[in-house]
């Protein structure tokens, strides 16, 4: 098992996948850190300055309802701890998609690059190959989380300190956000490996997973809203949208309630875990029966 994990890590290191992945993790972390930093900068200002920033210096001429909206936004975000949690998990939005794609590519490239024959000749126990890929992908995802978190925490803490706020480190809400971020990285990696086993066509798998991740939550919200309005007007119908993986992920990592009827964070974690395990189990079974030609 150890040598299969080692071999998978070696295989990753000896193609350009390694550099592309590292570069994407770094670029997405830095980009989101800048976006979150600008957001935190304005929200952590006193309310008057916040309004001034949003109205480009014309605070006196903005309508009352917009002012009320700004007040609400500012009240929710004017919180050093909340902003710290947001800043320190900056890599998450794109990072979890990237580790999911990494998991998919680690499986599907065996078919895309026609190396499956070679791989399964060396290790005829196909489940062992998948387990090797799984552990290797989790290690890489953990490393991606670590790099992203170190960059985000260093830059975020320096920023908060410069603004006169505490870094928030050691505060449970902040530490919890960082740890749930790790859980998200790992669970999406599991999901990626399972998805890759199920959909072995590389392009089909990567495109459909990206679409699911990016618009799955919006699509789920719309569908469940319609169901709730026209089919079954119950609150649990809206809560049930947590079964959609990206919604589950959001529910799991949100510091506050992800949406009004949202179940607790652990439900999101369990849903994501179940999806991942089901995908892996089904994918593995399919692979066992598949003729490698």
């Amino acid at each position, binding site marked *: 098992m150890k*040598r*299969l994990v*080692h*071999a998978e890590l*070696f*295989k990753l290191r*000896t*193609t*350009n996948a390694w550099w592309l992945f590292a570069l994407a993790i770094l670029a997405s972390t830095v980009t989101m850190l800048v976006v979150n930093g600008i957001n935190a900068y304005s929200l952590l200002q006193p309310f008057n300055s916040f309004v001034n920033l949003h109205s480009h210096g014309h605070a006196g001429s903005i309508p009352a309802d917009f002012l009320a909206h700004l007040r609400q936004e500012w009240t929710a975000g004017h919180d050093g701890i909340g902003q710290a949690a947001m800043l320190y998990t900056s890599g998450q939005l794109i990072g979890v998609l990237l580790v999911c794609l990494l998991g998919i590519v680690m499986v599907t*490239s065996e078919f895309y*690059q*026609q*190396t499956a*024959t*070679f*791989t*399964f*000749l*060396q*290790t*005829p*126990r196909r489940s062992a190959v998948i387990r*090797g890929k799984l552990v290797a992908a989790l290690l890489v995802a953990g490393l991606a989380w670590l790099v992203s978190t170190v960059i985000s925490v260093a830059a975020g803490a320096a920023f908060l300190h410069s603004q006169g706020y505490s870094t928030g480190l050691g505060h449970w809400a902040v530490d919890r956000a960082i740890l749930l971020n790790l859980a998200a990285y790992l669970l999406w990696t599991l999901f990626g490996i399972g998805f890759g086993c199920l959909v072995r066509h590389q392009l089909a798998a990567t495109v459909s997973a990206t679409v699911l991740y990016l618009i799955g939550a919006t699509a789920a919200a719309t569908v469940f809203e319609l169901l709730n309005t026209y089919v079954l007007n119950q609150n649990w119908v809206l809560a049930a949208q947590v079964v959609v993986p990206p919604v589950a992920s959001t529910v799991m990592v949100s510091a506050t309630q992800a949406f009004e009827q949202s179940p607790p964070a652990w439900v999101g974690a369990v849903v994501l875990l179940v999806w991942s395990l089901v995908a892996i189990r089904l994918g593995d079974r399919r692979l066992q*029966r598949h*003729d*490698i*030609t």
Partner: protein
Amino acid sequence: MTIHAQASERRHTAPGGPDGQSPIVVRGLTKQYGELTAVDDLTFTVTPGRVTGFLGPNGAGKTTTLRMLLGLVAPTSGTATIGDRLYADLPEPTRVVGAVLEASSAHRGRTGRNHLRAACIATGLEISRADATLEMVGLMAAADRPFKGYSLGMRQRLGIASAMLGDPDVLILDEPANGLDPEGIRWMRTLLQGLASEGRTVLVSSHLLSEMQALADEVVIVAAGRLARQGSIDDIIAPLSIGAPVQVSTPQPERLAAALRSAGATVTIPNGTALRVLGIEESLIGDLAFSVGVPVHRLYTETPDLEDAFLTLTHAEAAIR
């Protein structure tokens, strides 16, 4: 230490069979894809110490058979074992069997050396085996080039290098001559015959009949998924030689033809000095010519080659089904 020296040293502890010999035994092997029976109740044995050619037209089921033998394709029925075990049940398969199934099975962006090193790591072999086998197949100069820059011949050599990583008892190669130049083909022939002479089991599939005649000691001929014939090349050709025409070259063709006809032979005279004789053996023709005092310059039986045998044996079977 040369690779061959390493091999003979290893022979004492080889994992394949009781004395390191691992025959391939295929019994009643069948693979059905829907309506199509790709491999149909195929039975044959490949013995160690010889090069066995696995011959058949394209689409005859050769590759499917090899893939079933290597645990990549599940048979509908029947078994294929190596040293009495299924490939998937071998604890360290690459140390018993080396296989090259397709020349294009490495990641395009990975170098040849790293391709082999990854295999060494996955199978617990010394990483130095990568360079040793690269050296063996003459690919050291291209070791650090990405696979996508390899010619078809270089890919075949890399395939053979990967098969030899575990210094296996059994070698299985699917159409290894594809893409090799004449020098490469000669190199491969020498290599495979050398490996067989060390007592290894070597099974090579091909549709290149002339190449097989030069390489193999024995052939298994399949057509339309079924066994057409198994045996040594001589054994397969011999029955076809019975009653084969005899060519005679003589300055007095008409006189000899008359003598032969009176002895019951059918004789044609394709050109001025040559006769083509049917129905009478070479030695009798010589005796007869001597008795009638006709000089003979040349006398030989038209021996059918493997290609003729192959075409005869697979005559009724469509190549593509």
